[in-house]
């Protein structure tokens, strides 16, 4: 296994674990919504804190990478792109797309949060 494939395999697992932890936040948010307006307002104060905004940025970046790398895996499963040079090129694509997508989503979150009424 080359250094590239080793690194991309570990990154896919690491971002997967990050998203697994993100599910805890998702369910916390869903519980808050299910607990009524007052309980939701209390939870929202926590969920809107700067520390959690940073966590969302990490989650969005992990989502972007795991999405791009996951699609690469799905393509591999069809039997395509498995040659060494193809695999190296697609690893570059995954990182490029992940960085651009992560940047776009994080900017959207920051600007959207600022413009919210």
């Amino acid at each position: 296994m080359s250094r590239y494939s080793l690194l991309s395999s570990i990154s896919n697992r690491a971002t997967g674990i990050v998203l697994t932890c993100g599910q805890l936040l998702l369910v916390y948010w869903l519980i808050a919504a299910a607990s009524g307006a007052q309980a939701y307002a209390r939870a929202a104060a926590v969920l809107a804190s700067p520390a959690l905004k940073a966590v969302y940025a990490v989650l969005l970046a992990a989502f972007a990478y795991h999405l791009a790398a996951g699609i690469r895996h799905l393509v591999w499963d069809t039997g395509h792109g498995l040659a060494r040079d193809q695999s190296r090129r697609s690893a570059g694509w995954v990182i490029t797309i992940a960085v651009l997508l992560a940047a776009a989503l994080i900017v959207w979150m920051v600007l959207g949060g600022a413009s919210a009424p």
Partner: protein
Amino acid sequence: MSERSALGRVRGIGSAKEGVGDWWTQRLTSVALVVLGSWFVVSLLGLPDHDFATVAAWMRSWWRAPALILFVLTGAWHSQLGVRVIIEDYVHEIGAKTLAIGVASFAHIVIAAIGVVAVLRVALGGAA
């Protein structure tokens, strides 16, 4: 000569063509999550506000509530399979491995169950 049957001797020590089930489920949930995950992220970022009224109204739609439930379920399922593979790769002692997989799987089931009930509660108007 052992009293064990031929079937008893081989059971559990090799492929019974069942391992492919998890592999296939991991792929199916991947494809579903490309759609559901993207939809969820874009929707959440696109909401004009994240206060209770906006979020609850968003969740109560006839198609968003089931889509959200599917997202919670496929997300938890995909996550459980992924975490299990990681445990299988890094924890080698059979007792610790079994325990870790059991705890992780149970945690995922609990998370999924709570998530589904929460969405249903909002969607069916249980919460004011």
